[in-house]
């Protein structure tokens, strides 16, 4: 994934393979050490994945904390089928979605949180946000939540459709169609609202 490449490029520590990490995590004597290495390696990626979903900084912190707890406490339930990163992404996505659900009222869909999230985006970017980037994010917030999440994983994290399918449980065909639909919608939004 993109973050791995960034780490390698910047030389920020030595990356361990998923097999090595899993080996450490399954050994009680090395579990804590393995977990620290795991979060060091993927923490930033997971943080930005969550942040793009919940937008707010505080919400992202809370969701990241819960994600780490879930990963650490349920690593034994990871069956080893599929990528470890996909499994962690799934946990992070679910935690981010539960943060969003807490912001809804009875029977309100998280898809209706667009305005709330846009307000958060504006408050978070009041000082240093560039207009075009803010507009781009606003355009993304008009997408249905699941579609926005899939778009983010494809666009920002350079994940393959197969990897995204592992995280979201949707079919590759659906994801491809949704991605292209989202791109068109975002482009149209930018055309309409850019001055």
């Amino acid at each position, binding site marked *: 994934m993109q973050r791995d490449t960034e780490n390698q490029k910047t030389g920020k520590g030595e990356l361990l393979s998923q097999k090595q990490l899993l080996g450490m995590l399954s050994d009680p004597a090395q579990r*804590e050490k393995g*977990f*620290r290495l795991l*979060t*060091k390696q993927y*923490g*930033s990626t997971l*943080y*930005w994945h969550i*942040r*793009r979903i919940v937008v707010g*900084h505080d919400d992202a*912190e809370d969701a*990241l*904390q819960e994600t*780490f*707890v879930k*990963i*650490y*406490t349920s690593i034994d339930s990871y069956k080893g089928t599929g990528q470890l990163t996909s499994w962690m992404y799934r946990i992070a996505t679910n935690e981010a979605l539960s943060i969003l659900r807490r912001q809804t009222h009875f029977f309100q869909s998280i898809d209706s949180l667009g305005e709330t999230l846009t307000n958060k*985006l504006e408050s*978070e*970017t009041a000082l*240093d*946000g*560039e*207009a*075009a*980037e*803010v*507009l*781009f*994010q606003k355009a993304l917030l008009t997408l249905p939540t699941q579609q926005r999440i899939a778009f983010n994983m494809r*666009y*920002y994290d350079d994940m393959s459709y197969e990897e995204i399918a592992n995280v979201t449980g949707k079919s590759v065909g659906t994801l491809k169609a949704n991605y292209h639909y989202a*791109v068109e919608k*975002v*482009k149209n939004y*930018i055309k309409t609202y*850019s*001055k």
Partner: protein
Amino acid sequence: MKQFEDIKKQMPYAESEDYLEKLIASSTENAIARAKQPKAKVVSMRVIASIAASIAFLVTVGLLYMKVPERQIALVQQTEEQLIAADNGPIDDFLNTLSDDEAQLLAYYDIDEIPEY
């Protein structure tokens, strides 16, 4: 104004590497500490839902049970009314011709009280 292709992957908000490292480190240590804590007995939503469903079932069954005697009384009353309405045979016609005293005499009829002729 930049177009879609020009925006690339920059976010309108940023967090410093230093800040993120500290956040990740503290979240990691918190997660380890929380995992070590004895698990508090958290009543899950599933358990709460099961209990609520059981209570609702028992209340429903209870209410239905309570209503059975009421239904039986209503049925008896209905049957009596139907019987009264249906009482229009020759005996009833005869009884209707009797005065109250005659009806009372007939009710307290005793073989020993038959007058001798």
